[in-house]
């Protein structure tokens, strides 16, 4: 792999080697530019991945750890934020980022997602806005992402899906028992189940082998490279150009600015906690919807006293996360749901908001199983089950292979009060301000989640579940993997942080490309984040060639 000296001014410095950063690295290096990617996490390879539930779930093996990457949480700014018992923010922390350990759901947005405000009007207490781009602008890049990375699905099977210029490059993965039960029940109810689009290979593709159905997708890295992470797909291509250096264990603390208001590079801690300054002509932050605003807020200077790209004070605001309850049901015959990918069937019948429901919001529902043995024992039984002793043991043994779940993936409305900021007291082990999260769902989000919950329970009943129950956990206290909207995209510099091409309004050679750009949030964001990355890379490469950065 190419190595650059920190004092060499590279064309592009990318912060974060994840779902979007990996794509930026590949696109810009293959376009002929010199690229350094700083990744706070390690460079893990397939040989480092293990089927070890304790390591990956309890010990945060592939994600931020609350002790080493602490954050605080509060519902509103009238409270003092405290370190939560369970992390609120969860992100992938290695080369490949969240795309390494994600479940690999890969849903495109609907056309109407891009202009919800125009279509449905304002929502009281929410900062609903239209995107500055349309589905048509993004469609070629959705197609490119699906083709380049390798996505399995069935075009046309979802009667509600937006138009697409090409079918999925791979057929759907085999249906599981949960999918069969879900499909039968949904049809009975008059709804339209379809094979889950997954960034996991159902057949060999571009030198990688097909999924072997081991079942360790969510929270785990794929040992056989069947999951289409950026680690398994685009990052090796970037490295092969000889122009891209991936620098792991490099934790960026500040983006530096010159007197003329342009960024000049970034200061980071290397693996030995030494500070290094890497020079660059242009910086692209792809650090996720929580770390990107934190880094901007930490990058204060005399010219940008409120933090970088934050002249309007909007950096970190409008945080949106994954919403939706999970329900569980048990069946007479064995499902053996621990085998193969987590989800195989989905419905979008309630995806689009419908004013007749009396609130704004919608969502998809999938059939899934996302327990592993220990988490099942501790959290997979019905609420009235015994909690220890002979009966508990017997029930775990009976239920493990007879349980399936339905998860809703629902709208999260943007609220100005929900944000990422710097904690005024808590520091991380590097002495940097910890992230502070202020978040509470909009009341419409809660009503929408309850509406979807009723549909989920109806499906389990129609499927013939022997027993079914909703997960009663407080949704706002679970780890959130979708970290969105905190550096919103828009045409108006007063109401957004980046423009339609991800360039910050304040700094001409600073771009933000990740979940922070999203204007609205519904359902599964990774596909959209990666399509945005391909689109941004096209634009940025073109601008660089024309010396317009």
């Amino acid at each position, binding site marked *: 792999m190419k190595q650059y000296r920190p004092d060499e001014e590279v064309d592009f410095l990318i912060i974060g080697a994840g779902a979007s950063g990996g794509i930026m690295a590949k696109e810009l290096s293959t376009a002929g530019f010199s690229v350094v990617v700083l990744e706070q996490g390690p460079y893990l390879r397939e040989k480092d991945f293990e089927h070890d539930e304790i390591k990956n779930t309890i010990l945060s093996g592939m994600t931020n750890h609350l002790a080493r990457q602490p954050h605080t949480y509060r519902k509103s700014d009238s409270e003092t934020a405290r370190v939560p018992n369970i992390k609120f923010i969860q992100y992938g922390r290695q080369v490949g980022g969240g795309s390494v350990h994600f479940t690999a759901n890969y849903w495109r947005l609907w056309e109407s997602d891009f202009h919800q405000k125009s279509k449905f009007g304002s929502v009281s207490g929410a900062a609903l806005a239209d995107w500055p781009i349309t589905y048509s602008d993004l469609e070629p890049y959705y197609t490119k992402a699906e083709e380049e990375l390798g996505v399995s699905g069935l075009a046309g099977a979802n009667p509600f899906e937006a138009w697409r210029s090409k079918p999925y490059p791979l057929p759907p993965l085999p249906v599981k028992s949960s999918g069969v039960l879900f499909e039968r029940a949904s049809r009975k109810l008059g709804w339209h189940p379809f094979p889950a689009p997954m960034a996991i290979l159902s057949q060999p593709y571009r030198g990688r082998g097909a999924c072997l159905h081991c079942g360790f997708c969510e929270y785990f890295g794929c040992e056989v490279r069947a999951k289409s992470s950026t680690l398994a797909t685009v990052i090796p291509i970037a490295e092969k150009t000889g122009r891209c250096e991936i620098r792991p264990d490099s934790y960026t603390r500040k983006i530096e600015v010159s007197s003329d208001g342009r960024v000049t590079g970034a200061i980071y801690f290397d693996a030995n906690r030494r500070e290094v300054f890497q020079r660059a002509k242009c910086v692209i932050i792809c650090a996720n919807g929580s770390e990107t605003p934190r880094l901007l807020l930490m990058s204060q200077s005399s010219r940008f006293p409120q933090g970088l790209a934050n002249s309007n004070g909007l950096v970190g605001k409008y945080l949106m996360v994954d919403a939706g309850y999970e329900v569980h049901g048990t069946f007479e015959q*064995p499902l053996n749901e621990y085998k193969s990918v987590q989800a195989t069937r989905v419905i979008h019948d309630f995806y689009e908001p419908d004013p007749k429901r009396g609130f704004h919001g919608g969502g998809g529902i999938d059939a899934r199983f996302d327990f592993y043995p220990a988490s099942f024992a501790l959290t997979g039984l019905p609420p009235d089950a015994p909690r220890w002793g002979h009966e508990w*043991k017997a029930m775990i043994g009976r239920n493990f292979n007879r349980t399936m779940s339905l998860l809703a993936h629902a709208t999260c409305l943007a609220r100005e009060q929900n944000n990422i900021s710097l904690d005024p007291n808590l520091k991380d082990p590097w002495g940097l301000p910890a992230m502070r999260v202020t978040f509470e769902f909009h009341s419409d989000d809660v009503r929408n989640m309850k509406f979807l919950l009723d549909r989920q329970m109806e499906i389990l009943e129609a499927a013939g579940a022997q027993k079914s129950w909703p997960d009663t956990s407080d949704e706002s206290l679970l780890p959130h993997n979708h970290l969105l909207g905190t550096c919103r995209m828009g045409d108006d510099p007063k109401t957004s942080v980046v423009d339609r091409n991800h360039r910050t309004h304040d700094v001409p050679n600073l771009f933000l490309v990740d979940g922070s750009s999203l204007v609205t949030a519904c359902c599964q964001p990774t596909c959209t984040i990666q399509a945005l990355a391909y689109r941004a890379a096209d634009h940025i490469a073109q601008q660089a060639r024309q010396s317009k950065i």
Partner: protein
Amino acid sequence: MSEVRITRRHWLAVSPVAAAVLAAQEHAHQAARSVQPPPLTILDAAEAKEIEAIAAQIIPADDTPGAREAGVIYFIDHALATFDQYKRPLYTEGLRDLEARRDALFPGSQSIAALQPAEQIRLLQAIEKTDFFELLRTHTALGFFGNPSYGGNRDQIGWKLIGFEDRFQFQPPFGYYDAEHKG
């Protein structure tokens, strides 16, 4: 042990296929015993005996092995030596309180391990809403169902109970309903 044997015999009486399964289990159990268990590094022998007795009520042996047979105590010791170091005082304090309760409930008793099973259950019922019990329950489940590399789940006893196989490859159909759907 007497309780375990009675249960097993009862189970044998109603299940004609059980003999072979039991023989296989016995074999596995012997094989597990023949391997020298790792030494305890954090818990002293007396503490370990008490905690093991509690774990063995949280996941008891009946027609299948329980927490004791799965080596859950070695998992707990390993956890307290490594990733859950900071929980060591919770065990010391929790156990001290529990011994006091035992003394109050069963005057003259010597240890939790020496109580009759029914007495152990009564004692645990008295603390089942406490944080200490939740910690014991969590650690017992992790030690019973987690990866055997952490010292517990010996011979994959926990995974066998639930019908989980740790493999790199499965073929569809995976379950009853997708098999039926395929026809």
